[in-house]
């Protein structure tokens, strides 16, 4: 029966060729093989986000008079609504974490080096989209924390020279954070970002299929036979096992640390004490807190925002700036910068968490 179906399909769509390709696909085995799994974990969590997001859409209603109430309804009245919403929030956080680990492992292995420049560029673009997903999704329950996080986040955009005011209005849908902002963020979160992300993801995976997995710098010239494992079934089964473990972690987190809804946003109350953004924005938050009001003739946060823009640009263009790695050479300075970047991220995240 299955053979018949297979033959029927193969006659029409030549799936034999596809299967041949996947049989040939192999994964190199070396000291860094474990890092290959983090891309897959990120991919899995994206799937979780899409599915739980679709579920939530059946009950969620955007609007200053509806958002908070509908999320409250989801987590208190809808059967297993609390679980789905909890998984969606936790999965979003784990996804950013997995993507960051994936990025840093690619960075330190120099896997972005030619000819894989565009795999890196699409990857970094997806990381930025993830942050946009996180930032826009955070506002959707319309609670106090989200309201102020959105005020601060969008107001940072105002610091961009020349087009700042325009950007602010574009993001907020007006000059203040209101229901108009909520509509925009909702549209962005559920109908703009997902297809754009999916297209980039398609490209990213296509590049990886065409070029195969990157191997550690310098290993190309080593003598001796390279060790590999077939993708099907060896690597895929390992992937699936890890995904199962991640799913378990996700469910444990959602069950034992339910995601809070908080207090409904009120544009006429002061920001609550101890207000903080999501962990992956904490380092930005802490930097903004510590920047002096004026540095020379400039306002501190203007320079802060410009520095972050510069950092993001360098990150995207990294494979084109580091030409040495494409020629098989390792620039020590880049390792130092990477470690410094990681340490900055870690220290400022912890500080942001600890200091009130």
């Amino acid at each position, binding site marked *: 029966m299955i053979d018949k179906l297979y033959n029927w399909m193969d006659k029409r769509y030549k799936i034999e060729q596809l299967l041949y390709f996947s049989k040939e696909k192999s994964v190199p085995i070396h000291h860094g093989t474990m890092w290959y799994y983090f891309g897959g974990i990120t991919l899995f969590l994206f799937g979780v986000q899409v599915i739980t997001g679709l579920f939530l859409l059946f009950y969620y209603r955007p609007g200053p008079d509806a958002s908070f109430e509908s999320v409250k309804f989801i987590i208190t009245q809808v059967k297993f609504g609390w679980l789905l919403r909890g998984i969606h929030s936790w999965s979003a956080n784990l996804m950013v974490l997995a993507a960051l680990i994936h990025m840093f492992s690619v960075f330190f292995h120099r896997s972005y080096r030619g000819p894989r420049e565009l795999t890196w560029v699409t990857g970094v673009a997806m990381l930025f989209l993830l942050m946009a997903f996180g930032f826009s999704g955070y506002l959707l329950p319309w609670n106090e924390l989200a309201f102020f996080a959105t005020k*601060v986040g969008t107001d940072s955009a105002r610091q961009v020279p020349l087009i700042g005011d325009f950007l602010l*209005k*574009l993001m*907020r*849908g007006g000059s*203040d954070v209101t229901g*108009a902002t909520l509509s925009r963020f909702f549209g962005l979160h559920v109908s703009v970002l997902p297809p754009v992300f999916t297209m980039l993801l398609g490209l990213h995976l296509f590049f990886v299929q065409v070029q195969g997995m990157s191997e550690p710098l310098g290993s190309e010239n080593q003598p001796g036979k390279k060790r590999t494992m077939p993708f099907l079934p060896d690597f895929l089964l390992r992937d699936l096992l890890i995904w199962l473990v991640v799913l378990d972690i996700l469910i444990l987190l959602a069950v034992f640390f339910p995601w809070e809804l908080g207090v409904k946003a009120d544009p006429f*109350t002061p920001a609550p004490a*101890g207000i903080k953004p999501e962990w992956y924005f904490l380092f930005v938050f802490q930097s903004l*807190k510590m920047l002096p009001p004026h540095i020379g003739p400039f306002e501190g946060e203007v320079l802060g925002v410009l520095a972050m823009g510069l950092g993001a640009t360098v990150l995207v263009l990294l494979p084109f700036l580091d030409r040495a790695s494409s020629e098989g050479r390792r620039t020590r300075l880049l390792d130092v910068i990477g470690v410094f970047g990681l340490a900055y991220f870690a220290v400022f995240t912890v500080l942001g968490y600890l200091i009130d």
Partner: protein
Amino acid sequence: MATLEQPDPARRKFLDLFLAGSGLAALAGLAYPILRFFTPPHQEEAVVSSVNLGPVKDFPLNSGKIFRFGNKPGIIIRSSDGKFRAFSATCTHLDCIVQYDGKAGDIWCACHGGRYDINGQNISGPPPRPLDAFSVNILPESEEILVTLSTGDKA
């Protein structure tokens, strides 16, 4: 029998340029309305120049309260000596809403820890400018508080 003529290079170049130019013009023609669509239209806001906050007795000594000034938040503070002061409650750093800190006797923003003194001057943390001040008057007959834009302020 007709033979294929070699295309004239100048003519081909002109056509390439013409097509590329038309393509770009068409793209710009699309981009402009899209950009304009996403730019929120300007909405006339009711111009508010003063707001009545009610009787003086509603405000305890050494306390602060957020009030609506049009569609923006304001903060009114009654210090321990009974004096009233009112400011815009929007932090000049990154747009959060400030609060009165009765213990320290100053104005505090919870978002990034900025502080202003009782006169709205930025004294510590990241805020780059003082808070905009309003003038406070107490109506003689009704003992009610009237907050108005200080002269020179924009509506």
